[in-house]
């Protein structure tokens, strides 16, 4: 995956997370459903289903957090790499300018023989 893609993906993910209900919120809702079922004495099947839903949401939250952390890490690495590349390129430019100045000195006093 390219650096730019990593950064773009990180930004898109952040926007998506900002606009959508969070998994934590979904977990809250699942817990609420489970508590309601337990309190109202509904069938164990429904309670079991609600518990499974809660577990699934929690797993998804863990996976999403891990993915987000990985993306952030990749984005940070990409930015660091871009910065390192830019500095390396600047150094090459400096070396080229210096080589040009040295060459001018050399040419100024060069004999024609």
């Amino acid at each position, binding site marked *: 995956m390219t650096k730019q893609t990593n950064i773009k993906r990180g930004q898109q993910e952040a926007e998506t997370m900002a606009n959508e209900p969070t998994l934590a919120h979904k977990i809250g809702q699942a817990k609420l459903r489970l508590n309601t079922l337990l309190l109202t004495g509904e069938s164990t099947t429904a309670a079991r289903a609600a518990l499974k839903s809660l577990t699934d949401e929690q797993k998804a939250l863990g996976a999403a957090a891990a993915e987000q952390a990985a993306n952030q890490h990749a984005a940070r690495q990409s930015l660091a790499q871009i*910065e390192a590349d*830019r*500095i*390396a390129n*600047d*150094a*090459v430019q*400096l*070396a*080229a300018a*210096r*080589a040009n*100045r*040295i060459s001018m*000195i*050399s040419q100024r*006093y*060069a*004999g024609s*023989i």
Partner: protein
Amino acid sequence: MNAPIPTPALQALAAARSRLAECAERSTSAHSAQTKLLVRKSESEAAAALAIADHKAGSISEEVAALRRASSLQDAADLSALIQQGAAHLSKVDQEFAQAQAHATGAERDAAREEDLIAVSVLDQQIKTLEANFLSAMSERYRLHIKTNGNRGGQSTFNFYQPTQAMQELIKRNQPPAA
């Protein structure tokens, strides 16, 4: 033509310049943010004073004036706290900027010295080449002198070449020519 390979001094210079630019940007941004907070605090204090003035002028009741003043002073107090926090941050940013400046100055100096040493090496080699060429030309000129004049007029190079005063000063007294 291959791109020249930067020396460690040039790599350090590029990194130092980049760091300096980054610190300068951060410093400008931090100072701007702090200035905005100071302006907002002044505005809040002015609003507090205006509430009293309005009440004295009879345009608002004492209760409204008190409420407006208390609210404005609370804003000013909150802003003061932010300004105090900002001052510590500003000090850190300024310190980093000063360090980056000092580092960049050192890197510029190191790179310039390295370049001077390279130029010295190039010129030393060039002077040797020029001297060899000069002596070679003198030798050929002398050969032609003998060929064209025989032994008439002596066999000294003085007949066809008299070094300038500057050249004589250089050779006899090691005095550099005027730039």
